[in-house]
């Protein structure tokens, strides 16, 4: 391959594709990953564009137009003006669903970010430094694992009072355990690799070793755990809102919508089925994406 210009196609073809290019190739060939990404992007776009897409104000109560069933129901009341019908207060269900997606995604994302920072710090510190530091980190993780999340969340929220930010902080401060456990194991495994020893022998500082030698190599597992925990946080928010301890009315949240409809479950089941299906789709797409990411990125770990 005596090519005069090293950047010609011929010379490039000799090399195997870069890790990023191979990952892209695997990602687009992975059905679950693509499906999850498409649904999630759809929900994300709907949440983002809610003010433009929503046909009505989600807070607007029109009491003479309450409990209109969705359009596919064989009912005289069903109308295209309210494609998904209205709830018991006459609020447009589609608009509430769209605005509710914002709350679910916001809580899921923010709680995931908080827990990622806490969990990664504890996990990487324990895994990298080992010894006493690891003992302390392990104790904190074990303590956290022995706390039942929902009970603690209920206790805290009922003491502090519930609001969107309280729910985000309570969830974020509670669900970092998986980040810590996974990061600790991944860091420990990398700690013994020669390239970390080489960086030490070169004289790199500990901060530099953690940030530039260890972190890029644990990114895969971090992203996968992040998706799982985001789904987890969304479900917990729905559960808390259902119990009346999460997002407060009239804020539209999918969990709260299910909660508000529970009295009408037997006569107007769609009031529960629609937000339930939305929640199911969102969590399913996030989990599919996480599974896909693991499959797409895992081969790198082996090589």
């Amino acid at each position, binding site marked *: 391959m005596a090519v005069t210009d090293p950047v010609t196609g011929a010379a490039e073809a000799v090399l195997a594709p870069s890790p990023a290019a191979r990952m892209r190739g695997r990602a687009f060939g992975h059905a679950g990953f693509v499906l999850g990404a498409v649904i999630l992007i759809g929900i994300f776009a709907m949440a983002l564009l809610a003010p433009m897409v929503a046909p009505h104000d989600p807070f607007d109560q029109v009491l003479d137009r309450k409990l209109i069933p969705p359009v596919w129901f064989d009912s005289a009341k069903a109308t295209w003006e309210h494609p998904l019908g209205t709830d018991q207060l006459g609020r447009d269900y589609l608009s509430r669903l769209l605005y509710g997606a914002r709350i679910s995604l916001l809580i899921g994302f923010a709680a995931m970010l908080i827990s990622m920072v806490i969990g990664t710090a504890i996990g990487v510190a324990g895994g990298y430094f080992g010894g006493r530091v690891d003992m302390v980190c392990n104790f904190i993780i074990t303590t956290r694992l022995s706390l039942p999340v929902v009970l603690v969340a209920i206790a805290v929220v009922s003491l502090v009072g519930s609001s969107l930010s309280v729910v985000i902080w309570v969830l974020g401060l509670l669900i970092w355990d998986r980040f810590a456990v996974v990061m600790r194991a991944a860091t420990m495994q990398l700690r013994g690799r020669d390239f970390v020893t080489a960086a030490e022998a070169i*004289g790199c500082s500990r901060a530099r070793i953690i940030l530039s030698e260890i972190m890029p190599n644990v990114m895969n597992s971090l992203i996968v755990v992040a998706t799982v925990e985001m789904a987890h946080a969304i479900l917990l928010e729905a559960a808390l809102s259902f119990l009346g301890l999460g997002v407060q009315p009239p804020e539209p949240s999918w969990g709260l919508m299910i909660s508000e409809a529970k009295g009408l479950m037997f006569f107007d089941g769609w009031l529960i089925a629609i937000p339930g299906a939305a929640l199911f789709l969102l969590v399913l797409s996030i989990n599919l994406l996480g599974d896909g990411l693991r499959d797409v990125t895992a081969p790198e770990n082996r090589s």
Partner: protein
Amino acid sequence: MSETVLEARGVRRSFSVSGGFMKPRRALHAVRGVDFTIRRGEVVGLVGESGCGKSTLAKLLLGLMPPSEGEILLEGAPISGQDRLETARRIQPIFQDPYSSLNPRKSIGTIIGLPLRVQTDLGGAEIARRVTETMDLVGLPARVVDSYPNQLSGGQRQRVAIARALINRPSIIICDEPTSALDVSVQSQILNLLQDLQREFGLTYLLISHDLSVVEHMASRVAVMYLGRIVEERPTAGLFAEARHPYARALLDSVLTPDPSLGIPDTHLGAAFPNPLEIPAGCSFHPRCPKAMPRCCTVAPDPLRIGDGMVECLLHAPDQHDEPEEETTR
């Protein structure tokens, strides 16, 4: 040529290991009093079986781990009191496994340039120039500078590791089994590269290996290590012609030949595997020594200078007259 680069003085290192559930912790003596010097431009081989403390010694010399006792002098200054970067600038390692020693997430250029970025104030352009220069030196094509380690072969990866060790011109390079993870066909290329670089720049190597043919080919002086001590140290030719210590002789006899009809050589070492948790009294080699005498079980031999070498064996002690001398120096 005789300036001392690296000197170890009575270096010891022990680890405290768990004795098992509900049992007291025990001390594992990995390195038990090692003295040696490496002069500039020299290639010193360090041989010994697995678990004899070679890799621990390498870590101690690199300053990655403090010795429990004794001191290590790098160009005359003890590394224990030195700034980490100061040590790193003078001594660099090459590891055994090039699949583990390169960060899979970093490009080759970044990996090779790391010592310059950490240890010097050079700008990006100057670093890039030195990286290209060093890559050329170790025989890496310039186009792989933006590639990742998984795109290179084992031999190429080891060249990257050599380039990284070499780029800031350290005084001494510690090669910890630099070829044993490579294909046989690539091993000789890497050894020749190391040898060419050594001749061209007058580099100093400490070559740790269990492959005696590699050591014979490369080293000018060989130290044989057994259970944390150097039991014999001599110029290569002398050692390979007639080893004085029974363990060194057994090591030389154990080299497998490509001729299958010769069978597996009998080293007469027996099955007593050396245990660094329970080091035998007296001469630590006596349970496996084919020439062990009664006093070997109780008297620990002292290092003994013979000509240009050192041996630590009672067979050669001057007050030892009841044993025929010609038996030991065949």
